[in-house]
């Protein structure tokens, strides 16, 4: 009971199946009050299905959901006044102006006319959309649409906010602005559940992160705890040309205390428990007929941990960004 009060979102054994596909499997986690919680995984991992179940757009097959201490497993309407949702797709009304869209969304939460108009103006100002307030939503740019969708999600000042891939498919500047807004909302006290497939975004914004792969939560921890095991590692990337096919085997034999990984495009990743000495490596490579064009130290990141835990190559995530016309975190 104490846990239920401290947690803004408490989920136990949540499961959902669509036909043959098990979209979410036995998901359990807590999101604490005032926390910015990241839900990280590739496309199709079960992020949106989880958000849909938490917000009432999908019915769980099993499990229990409590939002702000209210058990809303069978009755999602019970907690909807406490939550704001920013879906992964823009879903405001193209025929209404930005201002009218916000006022309409506020009315859905029972806000009175004066109150909703004042709040709409305040948010348009905050999100830098005041000049476009009277323009039809259909004429907004993608970044502007995304910002107004976020504004619509927080129009009623919800203490708990669900953000489903808020920066996907928008330009770098808008994505940065949105991340600043999200951080600001969290600083102001909102509990935020953020799904994203941008690892850097999760690392930058979130206090704790859950990794979800094929519907299963494979790890939940704070960002420092997740990164800690690899922070002691020393990583280096070498850009090499004219390399021979058997070069990796030769390197592994010559430097057994180092781990080598080919990243493609002539890039070799070198990992070690101690500092890597570049001199002997470069000399060895040159003796093998290869040319070392660049050697640089790499700071281990959450991406490395994600790859380690999920087995999903970072390249797959990058491709997904590109497929979605993704912004750049």
């Amino acid at each position, binding site marked *: 009971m104490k846990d239920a009060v401290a947690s803004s979102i408490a989920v136990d054994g949540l499961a959902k199946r*669509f036909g043959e596909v098990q979209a979410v499997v036995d998901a359990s986690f807590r999101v604490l009050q005032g926390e910015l919680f990241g839900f990280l995984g590739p496309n199709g991992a079960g992020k949106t299905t989880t958000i*849909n179940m938490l*917000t*009432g*757009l*999908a*019915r769980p097959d099993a499990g229990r959901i409590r939002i702000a201490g209210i058990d809303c497993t069978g009755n999602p*309407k019970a907690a*909807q*006044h406490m*939550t704001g*949702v920013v*879906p992964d*797709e823009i*879903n*405001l*009304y*193209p*025929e*209404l102006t930005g201002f009218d869209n916000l*006022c*309409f*969304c506020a*009315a*859905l*939460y*029972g*806000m*009175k006319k004066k109150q909703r108009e004042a709040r709409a103006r305040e948010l348009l100002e905050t999100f830098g959309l005041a000049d476009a307030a009277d323009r039809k939503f259909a004429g907004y740019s993608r970044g502007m649409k995304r910002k107004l969708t976020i504004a*619509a999600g927080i129009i009623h000042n919800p203490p708990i906010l669900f953000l489903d891939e808020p920066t996907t498919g928008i330009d770098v500047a808008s994505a940065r602005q949105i991340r600043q807004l999200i951080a600001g909302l969290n600083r102001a006290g909102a509990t935020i559940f953020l799904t994203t497939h941008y690892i850097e975004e999760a690392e930058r914004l979130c206090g704790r992160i859950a990794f979800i792969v094929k519907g299963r939560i494979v790890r939940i921890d704070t960002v420092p705890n997740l990164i800690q095991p690899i922070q002691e590692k020393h990583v280096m990337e070498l850009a090499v040309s004219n390399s021979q096919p058997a070069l990796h085997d030769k390197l592994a034999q010559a430097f057994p205390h180092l781990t080598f990984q080919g990243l493609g495009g002539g890039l070799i990743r070198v990992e070690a428990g101690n500092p890597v000495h570049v001199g002997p490596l470069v000399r060895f490579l040159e003796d093998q007929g290869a040319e070392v064009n660049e050697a640089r130290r790499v700071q281990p990141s959450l991406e490395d941990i994600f790859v380690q835990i999920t087995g999903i190559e970072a390249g797959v995530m990058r491709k997904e960004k590109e497929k979605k016309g993704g912004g750049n975190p």
Partner: protein
Amino acid sequence: MKWWIAFWNILVKDMRAYYLKPPNVSWGLIFPLAWTGMSFIKSGSGLESVLSMLPGVVVVSILFGTTSMLSVTVTFEKKGRSFDRLLLAPIPLVILMLAKTSGAILFGAANAFIPIILAAFLADLSQAAWGTVIPAVFLLAVTSTFLGLFIAVSVSEVFEAQTFSNFFRFPMIFLCGLFFPIERLPLFIRPLSYVLPPTYGADILHGAFGIGNAMPMPIDFALLIVFSMGLFLVSLRNIQRRWIL
């Protein structure tokens, strides 16, 4: 939570965004006009036939006005996912769907009065029982709107909404006693007429305009209410089953 604020704003938004748009207003005007003109020319019996055609034209105007608009707008919003925004709001589903359908009910009722106003210039409507006409028009608009909702919830694409609407609407023109009595239909088809709600609306209007009704009006009204409630409840159940996955 003040539901009436949400209800009113959904209604106003739909009226502004859909029903009061010039193309829809013109549809609301032209469609009844075209039906009146067509039926008048077809009958070839002069101005005295206007009154006998009026109930049928009123029913067709309501039926096409409501089902066309509601099935398309709801399917459009569902497809564009703006309907999800309504489902995410803390409004009971019953209130939400009543709000979504109110605009179409008003649109349908307004459509009904266009042929009535036109007929007033061509025929003597002084004998019409307006105390019966008005609730009958309202109930017909409600039933037809809920039929539109039933259609909207049963399809996923806008074009399907249109074609599926016609599956119901066109047979109704011939089977519901709008322009010729059900008694003239082949015996084996008649049971079908009695499971279609416009039959009862048309019967009330025939009585109210002094042409003569086949069934007692309280039964007609009661059956229209039953059809309305049935269609609404089935639609709500379908929304919960199909849209809240």
